[in-house]
């Protein structure tokens, strides 16, 4: 369960803060926009009031300076339930015609250019009697039937209504946003949970499998990504199954190979037990001996093969070495066996050191089997040559003989375990080349087989027994350090 929890946590751990951030930014922007609009509207409202006053004055005042008229006007236009409203009207000499003196004085603090621009209005904040006011300052041309005069009208309002409104807006924005956030969290949570559910299913399916059960896992209604993982797991299990089957086959084959010579020896001995003629008995014993020799040989080969398995390779030491030295050593050892059959065994070393990375014991096993194979399957008076060839990044070990060789059809199979070319030496175990192949693989070397002498297709009379066999092993060359 560990792995999956952290995936979910990981997803949540960046999705949620991101979402919160988004909502925060979004709310702030919305709020700012709304407040801005609100303030503009309130300001515009203040200004409209000044315009109304100006119009009233120009329509109804006999003289623009009719104070009583002004005061009436103020009662009508400046009625407000929430905020305190002040006004001041002064002429162009700075004389207060009506309204709050304090407000008029507030205008004194304004920059010069504020005061005398006609048909223009400005907004500012001021504090009067410890209360904050928003003020509009407008200059008008009042003209009526009799005269024209420039007056400055100011209207100031406290901010209570504005604050109330802005709070309302704030709540109106934030609450839905929070609800949105909450809802999103749940959706994400639920979505992730549901989304990762197929992984849960896969995990359960794999856990429940015992090591004996390698049949494919079948899950239904799973998304593409999980199905890809499932397929990969199934492929792996199939490979394991094949491997186990191959191993079981090998064990069965090996047992058979061991039983056969054993049966032969026992049969000869049983015969000898029943025999009375000492000379006849003496004749049977070597045959029993021969079978047991073969049995021993097979057992030894099996042990060597087991030692060369990839699983055993973890304990190997691979060191840089010159193949020339090992090949010569083994060739020297095997020369007497070749000479018994009067085979001309020769060694052709490379001109430069054949440096590769390898394990000495395994290479010994490999070379013994390679050369033994060549000697075994070459006729008396034949020729076997072991040579090393070094090119830029390859070291090639070649064992070539002029024996009967192997037909093209069989050339692929001779590396199979227990494969024996039909009609040849019965004393072999069939494992020699299998061992060579395993050890080659351990060293990352490739192995190839060909006829020693290219078959001349034009000369049909060419006797096939001199086709010969050429086994080439290609190692990666290492540079001397």
């Amino acid at each position, binding site marked *: 369960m560990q792995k999956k929890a952290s995936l979910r946590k990981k997803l949540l751990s960046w999705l949620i803060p991101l979402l919160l951030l988004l909502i925060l930014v979004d709310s702030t922007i919305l709020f700012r926009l709304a407040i801005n609009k609100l303030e503009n509207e309130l300001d515009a409202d203040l200004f409209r009031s000044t315009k109304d006053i100006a119009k009233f004055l120009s329509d109804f005042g006999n003289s623009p300076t009719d104070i009583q008229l002004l005061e009436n006007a103020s009662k009508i236009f400046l009625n407000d339930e929430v905020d305190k409203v002040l006004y001041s009207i002064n002429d162009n000499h700075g004389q207060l015609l009506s309204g709050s003196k304090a407000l008029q004085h507030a205008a004194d603090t304004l920059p010069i250019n504020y005061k005398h621009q006609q048909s223009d209005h400005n907004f500012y904040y001021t504090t009067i009697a410890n209360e904050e006011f928003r003020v509009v300052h407008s200059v008008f041309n009042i003209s009526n039937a009799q005269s024209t005069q420039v007056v400055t009208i100011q209207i100031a309002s406290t901010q209570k209504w504005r604050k109330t409104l802005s709070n309302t807006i704030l709540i109106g924005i934030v609450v839905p946003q929070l609800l949105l956030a909450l809802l999103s969290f749940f959706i994400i949570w639920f979505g992730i949970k549901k989304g990762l559910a197929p992984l849960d299913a896969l995990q359960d399916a794999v856990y429940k499998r015992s090591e004996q059960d390698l049949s494919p896992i079948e899950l239904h209604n799973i998304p593409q990504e999980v199905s890809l993982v499932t397929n990969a797991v199934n492929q792996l299990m199939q490979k394991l199954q094949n491997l186990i089957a191959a191993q079981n086959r090998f064990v069965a084959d090996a047992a058979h190979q061991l039983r056969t010579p054993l049966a032969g020896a026992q049969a000869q001995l049983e015969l000898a037990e029943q025999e009375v003629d000492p000379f006849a008995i003496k004749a049977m014993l070597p045959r029993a001996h021969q079978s047991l020799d073969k049995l021993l040989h097979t057992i030894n080969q099996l042990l060597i093969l087991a030692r060369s398995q990839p699983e055993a390779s973890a304990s190997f030491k691979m060191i840089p070495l010159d193949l020339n030295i090992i090949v010569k050593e083994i060739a020297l050892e095997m*020369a007497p066996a070749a000479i018994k059959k009067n085979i*001309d065994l020769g060694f052709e070393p490379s001109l430069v050191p054949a440096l590769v990375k390898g394990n000495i014991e395994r290479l010994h096993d490999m070379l013994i089997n390679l050369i033994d194979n060549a000697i075994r399957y070459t006729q008396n008076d034949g020729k076997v040559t*072991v040579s090393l060839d070094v090119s830029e990044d390859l070291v090639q070990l070649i064992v070539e003989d002029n024996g009967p060789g192997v037909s093209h059809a069989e050339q692929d199979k001779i590396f199979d375990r227990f494969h024996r070319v039909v009609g040849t030496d019965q004393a072999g175990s069939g494992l020699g080349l299998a061992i060579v192949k395993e050890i080659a693989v351990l060293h990352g070397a490739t192995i190839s087989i060909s006829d020693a002498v290219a078959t001349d297709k034009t000369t049909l009379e060419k006797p096939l027994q001199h086709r010969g066999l050429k086994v080439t092993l290609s190692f990666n060359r290492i540079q001397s350090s």
Partner: protein
Amino acid sequence: MRILLVEDDAILGNATSIYLRNNGYAVDWVQDGKQADIILHDEIYDVVVLDLGLPQMDGLNVLKRLRARKQDTSVIILTARDDLEDRITGLDLGADDYLIKPIKLPELAARLRVQIRRKHAVSTAVIEYPPLTLHTKEHLVTYQGQPFALSPREFSLLETLLVRVGKVVSKESLIGNISDWDDSLGSNAIEVYMHRLRKKLLQVNIEIRTVRGLGYLLDKKN
């Protein structure tokens, strides 16, 4: 020659002890490690043939205790285990030789002879290779009792080949072995001496085979 055979398998032990007795050895046979340890404590043997997988006390333990008593009896280990590490351990603990089962009885007898020779520090004064006999101390070769003429270098070559009879001897080994006489000889020089030696040996039906790229092998001509 007294041999102690330590082997727990009845059939193998039976065959081995009878064979060795038939070949003139006095053989005592025990079947477990503890008995071997006790008997080695009291008796003296020339060679111990020691199996490793023993009941009561493991073969390597028997060996350890033997060496701890400063007894320098020759020990030939006989075992089914052929791992390199086991071999190294056995030899490090003081074994003189290490044989993997199953062994051919004549091979065992030959290895016993090697141990006895070493123990008695008998250098092979005479090497027989019919119809020739090589006398190492006198540096001469006889053919049917009569002297067989060889130059000193030819003698050295023949001696080296005879000591390693049955095995192919590399040119390098030969050069190493006969260069004591002189400063080091080139491989061409070896070939010249070889050629002369060959001619002489052919007269008595002995040939020296050249194995390409490997070396030389002494062989009887058919």
